[in-house]
């Protein structure tokens, strides 16, 4: 099988530019796509769509509740409304509209969430978004997709637009290395095994995919074979794949650019506790607001480095070995 990941990674690409280009391409393919912004189109690069299709672009001003409500009105007429603003604003200021009119009302609205995680690094915690997955995961009918590189943006955005019903597309503000080869064919709702391994599994999304791959390479040098799974769809969760990984590798680590509470780690923990309890560790922001600073260093400081993934895997492995029947029987002997 052709490898899904590049070795070495391709040079970094600005994710929001990849998004802008993907939007323009969608505009050419589908005339039912309408793009809305709360006056941040030059931040998230939806201005590229505005330039190409000015009559299908709506700027509602700095008014996120109206952004989502107007999108709901457009969806009522059969448009695929793609609302654009910062991730934290969808899940704080506009949350009522997302819950009531988009999810409960079943509106075919897509929330394109820019500047997610810590990626608006210099603007600081007011603009960072580490609770959005936890908030949105609890909303019935919501689908959550997190692309991990520019190719993933290009391949997943059309699927999100074609998806029936509410969806949240969570994007990094910055450059990310090109991880995937052209063989990468993501499908909403299906996790992807990028690297096989039998000692433990890391399940990652977004920026933490490339860091988890790096962690696997570091662990390989220590003789530990880490399976790397990309879980680009946080909801609906690929329960079958997670359970299989738990049974086959016996230890699970999650890695995400989000609070350790309620995001991908929370989702996987809920799944494992019910279906396949195994030692599990969560890599994420440890229930704290972060701070301003350069992106990569900020990720490192708040526990999202490849080294943090390595440490979590080692912890999980230690617990796995401590709880294995073989060790237990030795103790009783």
């Amino acid at each position, binding site marked *: 099988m052709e490898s899904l990941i590049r070795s070495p990674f391709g040079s970094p690409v600005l994710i929001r530019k990849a998004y802008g280009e993907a939007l323009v391409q969608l505009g050419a393919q589908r005339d039912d796509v309408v793009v809305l912004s709360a006056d941040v189109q030059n931040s998230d690069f939806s201005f590229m769509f505005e330039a190409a299709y000015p009559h299908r672009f709506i700027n509602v001003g700095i008014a996120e*509740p*109206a952004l989502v409500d107007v999108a709901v009105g*457009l969806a009522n007429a*059969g448009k695929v409304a793609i609302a654009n603003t910062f991730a934290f604003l969808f899940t704080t200021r506009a949350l009522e509209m997302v819950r009531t009119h988009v999810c409960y009302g079943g509106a075919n609205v897509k929330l394109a969430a820019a500047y997610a995680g810590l990626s608006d690094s210099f603007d600081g915690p007011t603009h960072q978004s580490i609770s959005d997955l936890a908030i949105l995961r609890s909303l019935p009918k919501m689908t959550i997709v997190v692309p991990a590189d520019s190719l993933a943006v290009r391949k997943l955005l059309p699927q999100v637009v074609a998806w029936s019903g509410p969806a949240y597309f969570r994007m990094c503000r910055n450059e990310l290395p090109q991880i995937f080869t052209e063989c990468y064919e993501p499908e909403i709702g299906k996790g992807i095994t990028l690297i096989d391994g039998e000692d433990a599994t890391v399940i990652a999304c977004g920026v933490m995919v490339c860091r988890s791959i790096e962690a696997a390479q570091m662990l390989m040098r220590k003789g530990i074979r880490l399976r790397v799974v990309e879980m680009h769809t946080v909801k609906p969760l690929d329960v079958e794949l997670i359970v299989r990984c738990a049974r086959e590798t016996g230890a699970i680590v999650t890695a995400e650019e989000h609070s350790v509470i309620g995001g991908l780690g929370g989702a996987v923990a809920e799944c494992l506790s019910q279906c396949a309890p195994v030692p599990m560790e969560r890599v994420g922001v440890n229930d704290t607001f972060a701070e301003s600073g350069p992106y990569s260093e900020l990720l490192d400081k708040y526990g999202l480095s490849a080294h943090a993934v390595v440490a979590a895997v080692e912890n999980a492995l230690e617990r796995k070995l401590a709880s294995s029947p073989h060790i237990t029987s030795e103790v009783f002997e």
Partner: protein
Amino acid sequence: MIASLAGQASPARVFACSAPHTAEMITDLSLRSYEYRAQVLRMVYERKSGHIGGAFSIAEILACLYFHHLRLDPANPGWNDRDRLVFSKGHACAMLYTCLAHRGYFPVSELPTFRGLNSRLQGHPEPQKTPGVEVAAGPLGHGVAIASGMALAARMDGSSRRIYAILGDGELNSGVIWEGLMVGAKFALDNLTVIVDYNGVQQTGTTRHIMPTEPIADKWASFNWHVIEIHGHNVGEILAALDLSNEIHGRPVVIIARTTKGKGVSFMENQPAWHGGVPDEKQFLSALAELEERTSEWKV
């Protein structure tokens, strides 16, 4: 009378959109507004839950829209060129459901299931459950912004369909309403008509006391909306205002309809307690008697 309504097999009479506003039409719509109030009273009384006051204040407005003004096809609720009605004051949905049932969207016999288990008629409107409901509503303040999105879509489609939204006056307290006003004005949405059911009473008191909104006409005008003020229980005025709203070019239109909360039942009128109050048996019978009396007055 209630029994005869529940047993009604065919939808109520509809006056074509193009029909002139005859005395017969005005009488018919006024009369059925009282019949529908009785229906709502029965629904809330039997479920021991619901919102009577704000449902009674919009009876004539909804009757004019659903049985004359709106271009609809109940047999084909998804027809994309239908006019849209955004029912922003979702709590008053017992009256909306009553109109939808009599317009033929679902059987009138389904109305008593309102707010019960397994019903399509939720406590607040839900578009995927109830035919004829356009958007979810209940949390207040969203009607103008959602309707603006619909109006933008109609313009993109080159469609002549028109968009209507019904707001309560209490929900004008909410900030998102004013975001919607700015959107409507920015895009000069002259295919949009908003109707404010200005009954002057909200959940815990008068709007004047809770959060003063006057001068309300000036506020809308200063946001670049065309303002029409009417008596909201006068069917002739409502019909004329709706027609006029379709003739205004370059600006969205708001119709400020001065109404009475709890209209039609003397002990409920203008009383905040009847925003969400449920009548006991004595009150129910007394209210029903009053509504029947008003109905028979129109029959004369």
